[in-house]
């Protein structure tokens, strides 16, 4: 079993196949961006992109990404050059605690890959299921709109 992780092919160790993809990414590959928040796909802190689709890594079986392409927040920037969504998050001072933001950013990247000029309704539909307890939602919306001008 193997998959493409941020552009590079990796084997899925057999004893990790039944683990949630989130733990494979975090504890086997050391990619700590996606977070454990609820374990049942409600909060979205673990959101990553599988073959272009924003997906909950906590409810995806690691073995099920065999042959697929997984993109995590660690794969967004090119060297020191941030992805426009990452830069917009800094420009708008979005993060408070920051714990949900990797999931928020990946959901936003998936949205903008799909719809380059999203309406407020598009943003609500794509983002409403990603929870933030600090209450940064309005800044997330503003950041997505300004990133859309850059993408």
């Amino acid at each position, binding site marked *: 079993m193997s998959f493409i992780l941020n552009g590079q092919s990796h084997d899925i160790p057999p*004893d*990790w196949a*039944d*683990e*949630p993809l989130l*733990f494979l990414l*975090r*504890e086997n590959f*050391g*990619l*700590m*961006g*996606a*977070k*454990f*928040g*609820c*374990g*049942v796909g*409600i*909060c979205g*802190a673990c959101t990553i992109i599988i073959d272009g689709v924003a997906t909950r890594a906590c409810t995806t079986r690691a073995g099920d990404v065999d042959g697929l392409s997984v993109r*995590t*927040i*660690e794969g*967004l*920037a090119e060297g020191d050059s*941030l992805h426009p969504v*990452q830069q917009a*998050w*800094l420009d708008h*001072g979005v*993060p*408070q*605690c*920051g*714990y*949900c*933001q*990797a999931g928020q*950013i990946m959901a936003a990247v998936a949205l903008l890959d799909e719809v380059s000029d999203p309406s407020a309704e598009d*943003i*609500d539909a794509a*983002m*409403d*299921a*990603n*929870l*933030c*307890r*600090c*209450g*940064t*939602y*309005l*800044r*997330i*919306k503003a950041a997505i709109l300004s990133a859309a001008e850059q993408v």
Partner: protein
Amino acid sequence: MRRRALLAAAAGGLVALIGAGAGVWSQVPVIPARPEPDAETALSWIAHREGRYTLTLPRAEMGQNIATALKQIACAELGAAWEVVDVVLHATDMPRVKATVGSESVMLFAEPLAQACAALRDALAAGQVAGQVSVTPRPVADLRSLRTGGLIGASPEITQGREIVTGAPLYAADVHLPGMQYGRVLRAPVSVEVESRPVRWNIEAARAVPGFVAVVEDCGPPIGKAQGLGIVATRPGALVAIAEAMDVAWSMATPHARSDIARAVDVDVRLSQGALPHEVLDGAPEDGAWDVDLRIDVPLAAHGPIEPRAAVAAWQDGALRVWAGTQDAFYIRDFLADAFALPAMAVTVQSCRIGGAFGGKTICTVEAEAAALTLATGNPVKVQWTRAQEYALGFHRPPSSHRIKARVAQGRVTDWDHAQMSSHIMFTAAVVPPWMQRGTDLFAGDGGVARGMAAPYVLGRARAAYDMVRLPVHTGPWRGLGAGPNALAVEIAMDEAALVAGVDPLAFRLAHSADPLLAAVLARVGEIAGWGRAPAPVGGLRAGRGIACGTYKDTSHAAAVADVAVDAKGRVRVTRLWCVHDCGLVINPDQVRAQCEGNLVWSLGMVLTDDLPTDAGHVTAQTFADAPIPHMTDVPPITVDLIQSDRPPQGAGETAMVAGPGAIANAIRAATGQRPTRFPVRSEDLGA
């Protein structure tokens, strides 16, 4: 040493069952020490070497972005460029600092830091390049960083922002150590205040699960009265399968005496038994009929941070090292040293960025679990609570019920009586052992429950008093402590009193305001919201506008206006929010605004969603679906206006909690004619 022997046994990989059962835990509490910061101590926070500075953050970073604000102070005072100051989070190997609670980080730490930086700046200017600097505090007017200008009043890119948006490891659960394993401590599905312990389990079935490492009976202090049973695995997901396979049978004592939580905190039941013992306002209202007489109920609520508590523990070089997302690393250190009979020098706790705390990450739980499991197995262990553990084992905002009355004559409140029944916030079971509780309950009251009960108004003959009862669910500090629920009750009653008096609610508050700074935020929010205009109509829905205000911890002030729309089925949408905020000198306006925005979203949650279901005194919530928090589409446009002030800086992390909930509740009253008094509001109370 006994534990070292256990480690040796475990290291062979053969021992699956470690320890001799439940330990005997100290009955003497470890009380959190709360030293006030001073300039002398602050010298340990800032260091210079070869043109670069290191600021060791004396606070926990949990999203208030205090790392950014204190770096602004340091840079401004040192005259140093932003790029040459590195910020690191503290470990317990520096002089003790008090817990990061109560919105005190700028209020109490900015000036000592500025004094230390000024001393360092002068020492460098005098040619000193090594050794210890001494500090003689100078007049505040001589400090460069406690006045607006340059970095003070600016909003630079937030510290650790780049790490957040690139997914770099920052949080306790992001720590990864060689040979690390994954642990969990199982506890009985019963109230944490009912004695429980594991009695038997299927060790053979557990061993058969791939990734199984050990069952650990000696797994640290109980949480409340819940003795646990530890499990360790080579992969985190395996813990779920191991726990299922174990099929643990629990010994559980009979149900808690106050399993009916709503009845236990029923203020009217309590008042029928006599006067409340703890007075906040000691006026003597006259007997007679009341113009306002409301019963207001606010339920148990979880903090709901997206980060479940996590810790990594390792035994390294003869010492216990723990990485924790905690508001008080020093208390965690002291607690662990006591619990595991180690000298304090042999325990180091490293603060990690916290993924949301809101008052909830102040006591030692998951850290002790990780420590016990690493001491038992000899390997580094990571423990992160499940969401269900967060609800069942954490502590929560206590439920409160309020009987609040006012009498009105000639447009003024002449008599006021606010009675509250709640549970503990400061003197909780986590920090006060049973033998001390009777004393604190009788004589000390609980300042957390009292917070915000003294209404910020001149109210004639005003009484406010409260009592608390210990519940089967753990309670404690939650953003604003008692101030959120108390201010909600006060602001609803003031709104009703204004209606009775026939006076505009804004003018009514202004007429009663005891503080010109409070009056100023009120007047200002009226201006920016266009108070007096009807709220924008929303297609066929009942629209309403409400106002509220308050003062937090005597020194910071907020006022809010809310617009709501309510449909025929009684479903409420908040459609617009305004807030004016005065916390004195503002170091970082963008992040003070962010705190106001967060508090307004919390205000919305407090009125519309916050609730934590229980059954027989046991929290039954398992997921965010059972204890919902506001979503993006719940949040309306928000306008925040900060008062420009040269008062010394005050707190901003909780202040708007005294204004937002009341404004929303009062807007619902304006829209529907129904006065919401049970929270979160129920649509059946607001039908057309």
